[in-house]
């Protein structure tokens, strides 16, 4: 292999990232759902990301880096968004799910599964802000649901 044939690793990660964004992430509605999806491609034991399709088109290592990059970027976006925006994100996620709204809100408040969606090297304060905001968003959606139920029973 000559020097010219050595692929530029950074460009390849960017290509894999673009491919991931175009083929998978663009089809998922809402950043929170994208975050949960990306976190689900990460192995609980090793912390490494894996995506069959992406690994087949690129190398497994490159695919893993692209997934990690996307995960980190979406997380940062969500952590910095306003509480109102996050409430909308959680609302979109809950609305798009096949389970009942009440069930998801209840389980998410009890089990706090969103904690698993944090990237590995995230800043502690940023992680705390995200977890805290999701907790608040869930409480706000529960309140809205209670108010809607009360209005419905009154009318």
């Amino acid at each position, binding site marked *: 292999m000559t020097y010219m044939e050595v692929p530029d690793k950074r460009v390849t990660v960017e290509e894999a990232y673009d491919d991931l964004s175009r083929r998978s992430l663009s089809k998922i509605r809402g950043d929170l759902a994208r975050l949960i999806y990306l976190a689900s491609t990460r192995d609980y034991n090793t912390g490494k990301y894996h995506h069959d399709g992406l690994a087949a088109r690129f190398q497994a290592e490159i695919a893993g880096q692209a997934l990690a990059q996307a995960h980190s970027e979406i997380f940062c976006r969500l952590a*910095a968004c306003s509480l109102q925006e996050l409430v909308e994100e959680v609302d979109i996620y809950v609305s798009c799910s096949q389970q009942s709204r009440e069930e998801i809100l209840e389980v998410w408040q009890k089990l706090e599964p969103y904690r698993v969606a944090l990237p590995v090297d995230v800043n*502690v*304060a940023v992680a705390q*802000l995200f977890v805290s905001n999701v907790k608040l968003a869930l409480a*706000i959606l529960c*309140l809205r649901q209670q108010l809607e139920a009360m209005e419905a029973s009154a009318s």
Partner: protein
Amino acid sequence: MIGSASLVAGAVLLLLLLAVVTKGWLAARQLQDVAPASREEDEMEPCAEEVVSRIFSRADWEFVRGLKAGRIERLFEQERKRVALVWVRQTSATIRKVMREHAEAARQSANLQFSMEINILAQFLTLMAVCGTLSMAIQIAGPLWLGGLAQYAQRLSQQVMKLQESFQAGILAKAEGAGRG
């Protein structure tokens, strides 16, 4: 009479400043209870400015207040207070780590610049005092009125880090120059 009153006032101010610096120091040590030591060591990168603004955001508070639900308001106040304190402790711990590294590098340096050392020390002490003030004020009144002070602490911590980086870069350059010569 006026002279002794000034002396007493000065002593009180000095004691207050010492208390605030000590509070900042203690706040930094408490981070070890919140985050494991290894995480603290890893997290040299401070929070992005937009995250700091978000933690101390009044816009989020206005949104919550608009819901007219006391339970949510209380939860918000409690949560933001907790997150703000974590941020203060983290900033304080990060800067202490930078100062430890700086002290280590300074010990090995042959020709220290007195003015630069004084500058770094002054900024470090100011930052510790600001962190102590923030920590106390957050516990007393919550974080929503302290956005400006938090941004100031954020900028100051970045300045201290940059000073330490340029100091370290200077030492490396000198060592490389000596190696070649």
